[in-house]
């Protein structure tokens, strides 16, 4: 790399962090290619592949028909024969159209083949509500994939994580799903210019604290930091942890925190019932039972499809206020 190190303060939006990572990954490894709907000529409807076609050409930045199963299978066949594909599925909701490829093929082929296969495949997608796109363009379905042995799942909480986790995902020799949140694509933060990795499977303590732990994913990380600030007035010193990787989950870091703080809450944007927060909460109480002074709380979306109308969607969305309120409710329940 000949680029001059940018100042440590270089701030770029989440969307640019992704595009930058893609460019650098493709430069470092000729086997990396990206395929998806409108990723080439148009640079993706979210802008995450802008500029790539020009630099890498149509062989490596591949516009596809609207055929998610075909695209995902293309990624699998290419990965099994030596390439390192990135498959972009525009909205996470569309994962439902290619679940077989992801879950029954990509995740399991290595095991079913007795270990002989290697599937270095990255699935890249956008989750989350908040854009008035209604029930089929707003879901956060990461819990489905965390339940499937053979997959890894990451969920970046900001620009720094977006780049570092994407790099780690693509370099990993396993299928990794990168679940971005569309409403934070404009979020700006410091992102090193050179290529770097955030190790998979390691949680990050975003805000240290001593007497309450909030474990949050994706967009809920920044909301939890806001909630933590609000809760200072309640005499709480909240630790906020971002697992970064949901599968494999860094139980250790989280449990250590809870053993220190004695109280915990898990927050995500997905529907609360059956969300990944249930797994996290279950693990926390299993591993830190003796340390808990209150039940492990959970904040997630209510049990309804995502509504269109902005007034309803606002009510639907988990946010800092709801997290803070739930923390307060939990403390009322304290043993």
């Amino acid at each position: 790399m000949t680029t001059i190190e940018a100042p440590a303060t270089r701030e770029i939006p989440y969307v640019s962090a992704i595009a930058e990572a893609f460019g650098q990954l493709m430069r470092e490894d000729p086997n990396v290619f990206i395929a998806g709907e409108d990723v080439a000529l148009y640079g993706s409807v979210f802008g995450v592949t802008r500029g790539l076609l020009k630099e890498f050409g149509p062989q490596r930045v591949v516009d596809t028909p609207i055929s998610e199963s075909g695209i995902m299978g293309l990624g699998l066949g290419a990965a099994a024969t030596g390439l390192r594909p990135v498959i972009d599925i525009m909205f996470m909701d569309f994962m439902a159209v290619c679940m077989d490829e992801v879950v029954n093929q990509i995740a399991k082929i290595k095991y079913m083949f007795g270990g002989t296969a290697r599937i270095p495949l990255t699935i890249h997608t956008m989750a989350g509500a908040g854009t008035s796109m209604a029930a089929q363009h707003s879901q956060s379905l990461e819990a489905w994939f965390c339940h499937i042995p053979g997959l890894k799942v990451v969920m970046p909480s900001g620009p720094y994580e977006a780049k570092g986790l994407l790099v780690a995902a693509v370099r990993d020799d396993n299928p990794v799903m990168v679940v971005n949140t569309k409403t934070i694509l404009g979020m700006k933060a410091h992102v090193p210019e050179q290529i770097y990795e955030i190790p998979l499977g390691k949680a990050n303590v975003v805000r240290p604290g001593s007497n309450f732990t909030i474990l949050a994913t994706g967009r809920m990380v920044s909301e939890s930091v806001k909630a933590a600030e609000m809760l200072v007035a309640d005499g709480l010193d909240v630790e906020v942890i971002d697992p970064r990787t949901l599968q494999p989950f860094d139980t250790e870091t989280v449990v250590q925190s809870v053993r220190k703080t004695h109280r915990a809450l898990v927050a995500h944007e997905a529907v609360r019932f059956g969300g990944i927060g249930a797994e996290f909460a279950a693990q926390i109480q299993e591993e830190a039972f003796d340390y808990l002074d209150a039940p492990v709380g959970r904040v997630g979306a209510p049990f309804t499809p995502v509504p269109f109308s902005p007034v309803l969607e606002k009510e639907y969305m988990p946010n800092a206020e709801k997290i803070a309120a739930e923390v307060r409710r939990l403390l009322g329940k304290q043993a």
Partner: protein
Amino acid sequence: MDISNGVLLDLHRRMVRIRTFEEEAGKLMEAGKIPGALHLYVGEEAVAAGVMVHLRDSDQITSTHRGHGHLVAKGGDLRKMYAELYGRATGYCKGKGGSMHISDLDLGMLGANGIVGAGPPIAIGAAFSNKYRGTDNVTVCFFGDGASNEGTFHEAANMAALYKLPVVFACENNGFGEFTRQERHQAVHDIADRAAGYGMPGIVVDGMDALAVYEAAGEAIARARAGSGPTLLEFKTYRFFDHVGIRGMGVIYREDAEVLQWRERDPVGLVETRLAEQGILSPEAAAAVHEAALADVRDAIAFAEASPFPEPGALMEDIYTVSRGVA
């Protein structure tokens, strides 16, 4: 085919109503008054109108993300439509669906759909039901050139032909799936060629010519209604605006010249010229149709803007049907 003057005027009126509905909606979206994404139907009006004049309220259609035109043509209530686009409680879906899920089950409009390719399997279900219940209702399945590459189309087409279902597959080939030109998403020129692989007729139709649409759709629908099975109609058409919103020119994925060329065959203009030539529609009468449409649309917009947003409690309603006393 013999077309009565009444039908011709009906066709024209439906097209104008769609055009007016969409142009006003586009402006309101650009003005920030309508949230979310609008996929507008401008340029493709002849298809919806030419198909829908053949349908009864009890006939069903499945629609797409680009669904306003279909519902307007099927007789949808413009007030409820605009209220829905605005996310109001008075909308077709009480504000819960928006543009991509607009629907009217009483009119057999089984919903716009946010998932490309979702319509065909649903359409064959409705057609199966029509047959099962011994009705002679027909279901028309609208889908795009892009959608023709989804596996769901394949599965539904095969099942429709196998079971001889009363369904018509109406492919609106507007030349693009989002920003990808047809020749970059499939190696065939005519999607109608796929019909033979299922055992049904496949017919290419000029989708800018309302009368051509009328004629082809009439035959296919009659065939379905008579119990003779499905047909695949491919309507060659063009979307004048962008994939989302109203910007139609100066875009990266097509030349302005191409847009202008297609606009020369504007389906509304074409039908008006034709009706004028036949002495059925004077310029004044045509203008009156436009004015009436605009008045209706303005009324609908005013209704929407005056309508309340859903109450907060509405969020958790309508998820489940209350079934024998239990929600």
